[in-house]
């Protein structure tokens, strides 16, 4: 079974001198109905990765590298990317309020999407719109459709934003819950999980919250400084991380009943474009050795479990 989404050696650069590179040769794949989480700190390039795959980069960014959706190359030109977006790729942004056009009614925006994706007439589109609202568990669709975005609460807006996607086969979610209240976060996550089940969607979710990863993901990819440094099945990776960075991330998660200071990873990630020789994590790595400053490690290992490190952990659980 070929992958639903296949990315090979994707590179994203931005305008400037020197051109800052946000994503540096990333490869990943998502199978149908699979849920892949991408984890990393701010600046790791994870958001840009999502935007690049869907052709939504800002005007001063440029993406290179094959991105195949359902076997078809979509980064070739703007139109193929737009077509793909309409026919199978859904996108949920971090800022829900920012996703809805402020001067148009909710109903109009939903109907518009329904008409564009299915090519139906207005009547059928209105019915589809009601159905879309129902799918995201929003009550009273009729009155909701007459409202404007500024009349809804944050959580409701995010649900509408999710509803606005017309039956995607894969959902790209860029940190969809950080801007929300904690109680609402759980709801939205549950909703996303349910939708994946109901619609048979694959999910590509970017987050820095390992809790979400544990709850939702089948597979995880860890990004650092524009590269994937470790990838594997969620359960295995979270319990037995092989890359020092992953281990550091896991150790930094606060635990109930734990005492003492929170473990942190000292230092900060390099700024995009400030690459240097050798492993990019080396300056912060507690296990760095001579070799790490010389050679850049590549993602290696069995297909389901890759790690980019010269001295990957092979031991048991983290302390």
């Amino acid at each position, binding site marked *: 079974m070929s992958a639903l989404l296949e990315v090979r050696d994707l590179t994203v650069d931005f305008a400037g001198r020197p051109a800052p590179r946000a994503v540096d040769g990333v490869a990943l794949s998502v199978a149908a109905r699979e849920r892949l989480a991408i984890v990393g700190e701010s600046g790791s390039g994870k958001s840009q990765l999502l935007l690049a795959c*869907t052709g*939504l980069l800002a005007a001063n960014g440029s993406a290179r590298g094959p991105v195949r959706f359902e076997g078809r190359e979509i980064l070739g030109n703007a139109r193929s990317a737009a077509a793909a977006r309409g026919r199978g790729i859904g996108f949920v942004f971090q800022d829900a309020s*920012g996703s809805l056009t402020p001067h148009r009614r909710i109903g109009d925006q939903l109907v518009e999407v329904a008409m564009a994706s299915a090519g139906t007439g207005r009547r059928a589109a209105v019915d589809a719109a009601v159905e879309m609202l129902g799918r995201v568990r929003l009550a009273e669709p009729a009155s909701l459709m007459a409202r404007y975005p500024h009349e809804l609460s944050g959580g409701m807006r995010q649900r509408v934003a999710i509803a606005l996607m017309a039956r995607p086969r894969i959902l790209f979610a860029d940190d969809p819950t950080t801007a929300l209240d904690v109680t609402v976060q759980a709801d939205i996550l549950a909703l996303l999980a349910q939708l994946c089940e109901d619609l048979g969607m694959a999910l590509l979710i970017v987050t820095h919250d390992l809790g979400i990863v544990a709850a939702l993901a089948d597979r995880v990819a860890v990004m650092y400084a524009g590269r994937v440094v470790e990838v594997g099945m969620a359960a295995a990776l979270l319990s037995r991380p092989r890359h020092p960075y992953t281990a550091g991330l896991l150790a930094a998660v606060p635990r109930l009943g734990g005492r003492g200071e929170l473990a942190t990873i000292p230092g900060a990630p390099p700024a995009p474009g400030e690459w240097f020789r050798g492993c990019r994590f080396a300056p912060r790595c507690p296990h760095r050795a001579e070799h790490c400053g010389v050679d850049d490690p590549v993602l290696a290992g069995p297909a389901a479990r890759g790690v980019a490190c010269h001295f990957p952990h092979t031991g048991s659980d983290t302390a």
Partner: protein
Amino acid sequence: MATIAFVLRRLLGAIPTLALVVALSFLLTRLAPGGPFDEEQVLPPEIRANLEAAYGLDQPVHVQFGRYVGGLLRGDFGPSFKFRDFTVGELIADGLPVSLALGAAAVVVALALGIPAGIVAALARGHAADRAMMTIAIAGISIPVFVVAPLLVLVFGIWLGWLPVAGWVPGRPTDLVLPVVALALSPAAFIARLTRGSLLEVLRAPWIRAARARGLPERVVILRHALPAALLPVVSYAGPAAASVLAGSLVVETLFGLPGMGRHLVQGALNRDYTLVMGMVIVYAALMIALNLLADLACAALDPRTRRERPR
């Protein structure tokens, strides 16, 4: 409904401004050193006193003001001091239709030229078309009406002979073409720049990216999502645009010999005809206020958020 309440509120808000215009104009003209009869041939004191009494100029200021406002409310602007046979009201009515037609046409033309130009420039950002259009726009703003008008007359009226040079024959629409175009160019240039800047700004908004992310065709994104938001500042500009057009109409009417109000106003200004100048200023101000009101309503129609009750 909320809309009617909104309209009423705006109307009520406009009244104080109009009242202020009336008061201020009155005050200023009464402050003038000397009176309207100073520049006549030297009059014997008794005759002058009679004249002043006839026009009510011997009363205290506040009484005069009261009488004037009373007259206004009845539609009576008082007599013209210089055109003895006419009242100001008659002169205004005589010129208003032409001035209105001229002004309205100019605003429409300005919008029809400026908005598309701005859109094209924004969509072609960075390319030659954009820079060219914006340079032309700056030129448009820099060339004053009283230069454009003679130039247009020279080119289209004299050299090419396509359009009439001056004059006004009712029912001959070509008479209005040159004046309207001359009047519309500067506002059109400003509107073009405004539209371009506004559209570029809107296109950077996150909800535009979200609309694209939903797979909507680019045409829909621009027309239904970006444009209404981008046009908001342009519509708000209607106020200053009206002022510019009305001011320019003075020049245009003078140059082309159009029988509008502007001609009378200029004459009145040169003759120090107070009631005439005052009356005209009030009418022009009322026109501007009306246009501002329309612009406000259009803004509310474009962006529902402005319709809410909000402390200003």
